[in-house]
């Protein structure tokens, strides 16, 4: 049995959402964080013209929460209907970056919606994509922030 998830309600992520009351709420449950050091960072992305994902251009909202080994839930409110993907990582050292070793391999845990993965790069947007309808109420999805993090 999992302990009761810790929940942070994060004030809206920014967003394109103007018509309050017409958006959907999204609860992102992060699992598999290895330690309570640092923070969990979550970003909501949309499809871009150029197809860049994940990128600065594709981010529509982001949020952070203290890291925890129990499930961490981050809530986004009032997302307009559309197709989205979630990217998240465990910023264990709190520097705001997904750290990597010198060959470019991430050394902090990370994950995408749908458990999407790519080979030699991030997954394509459509592999991580899901849809939110108008007045969809609350949608909950799980992102596994996995990683055998070198410890010592």
């Amino acid at each position, binding site marked *: 049995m999992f302990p009761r998830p810790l929940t942070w309600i994060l004030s809206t992520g920014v967003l394109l959402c103007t018509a309050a009351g017409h958006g959907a709420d999204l609860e992102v449950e992060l699992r598999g964080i290895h330690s309570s050091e640092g923070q969990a960072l979550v970003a909501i992305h949309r499809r871009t013209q150029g197809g860049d994902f994940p990128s600065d251009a594709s981010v529509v909202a982001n949020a952070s929460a203290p890291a925890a080994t129990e499930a961490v839930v981050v809530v986004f409110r009032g997302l307009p209907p559309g197709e989205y993907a979630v990217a998240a990582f465990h910023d264990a050292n709190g520097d705001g970056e997904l750290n990597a070793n010198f*060959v470019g391999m991430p050394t902090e845990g990370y994950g995408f919606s749908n458990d999407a993965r790519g*080979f030699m790069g991030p997954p394509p947007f459509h592999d991580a994509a899901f849809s939110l309808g108008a007045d969809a109420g609350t949608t909950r999805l799980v992102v596994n922030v996995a990683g055998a993090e070198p410890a010592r």
Partner: protein
Amino acid sequence: MNHFGLSRRNALRFLASAPLLSAGALRAGTAEEFAAGLARDRRLLAFATPRAREVAAPLRTVAGRLPAELTGTLWRNGPAEHDRFGHRYGHWFDGDGMLQAFTFDGTGVTHRGRILDTPKRRRETQAGRRVLPAFGTVPPDPDAIRRPDDMNAANTSALAHGERLLALWEGGSALEVDPETLATRGFVRWRDDLAGLPFGAHPKRERDGTVWNIGVVINPRPMLLLYRIGPAGTLDGFGHLPVDPLGMVHDFVVTERRLVALLPPFVVEPERFASGHTSFLDAHAWRPELGTRALVFDKDTLAPVGRHALPAGFHFHHGNGWEERDGTIHLDVCQAPDPQFVLRDLRAPMHGEWRFPSVHPGYRRVALRPDGAALIDDAAPGVTEFPRIDPRRVGLRHRRVFVLHGPGPTESGPATWVLQRIASLDPDGGVVEHWSYPPHQLPEEHVFVPRGPAEGDGWLLGPFLDVARREGGLHVFDARRLADGPLWEGTLPYPMPLGLHGTFVAG
């Protein structure tokens, strides 16, 4: 300032780049076919999973006397958990590692062993099934691999250095283990920007306490890594060299001024690698036209200073390397004409077949001249594997190599284990002497422990499996009187599968 866009594209380029996944042509074993094989041939016990995840017992003296001055611990590692959740791996090198300690206190020997609690194994415990790709087998419906350590089985070797005990694999980080409880403490991070990078299973320790090692990275681009670890156990130097194409490089040698890596022409094909359906082993292609490439590095700068070309061959192990005053580098290698024995013979016992028809490695000498010339010749007859030397000769001219030895498949017939003897070799003179294990005892690598000041004056510690008594055991030999047979034989009240490599820590 972060935008969570995961904009470090370079970081993400690595994602699934770990050593490979396979499902296709080469199947896993099954418990049924293995059980049927074991009923036909009791020697297959060498590839059976231990009945308990944790074992401990004193060894019972069967014959002889233990040298009172021999005190310390022989650490051993090897794939042991071949079966789990009803899934049996299809290659000898796949199984989750079991670290073992044989502790000598001057009057007796006690044994401890524990299947290592790796993140890989934990993830499979959680899933209730095998979900991660292994060296030569991919389980059905495998999970995402995000980095090599996700599949790190920590099953190949052990290193005690700078007050740390490390279980080594080849494709990922060293795993620190508590020497008292054999509990895992975590992967070693030599430096922040080196976290998660492969640290090989054949580190070399010099007399001043410096440890050298290599690592092989396949993605995002193939490169050879070089590590220099100081006597205190901290990183003193790091180098890397892009090498394309590249495949497994299991071992290397050090000389007084150089590091030398021989690269067999058994290289990873990126397309097969990327398919996600091919194991790390099976993503390799045999490309004899490349020959065996020898790369020579300077120990001070860790920069390449020489390249040599040798005929194609496949090897895992070296005995030692040394250099002459004129710069000629000598090394020995246990080399086969091709990797068939790895691809085929080391799979057969996992499927309950006692068949080793391929040509296994033989003992060869290599000379690399400063003018670029390279020579290789056979230096002993028969099959030769698991070479060990007197550790005081690492990087210096050596006169003895202790190996597991066999007459070779053509002479021994298909039903014989390929390595049934412990032998002492002279690199210039072939087999000096040997002792043959009885057919019901299968030996592992024998580790040399120094006694007197001269090279080769010491003991050989040799674990074995007795398939008649269904017991593990250990022999102690006088390394200069192998032909006389063991000084001491002790047995365990349980069998242990054949392991790979180990190290002795005196004290």
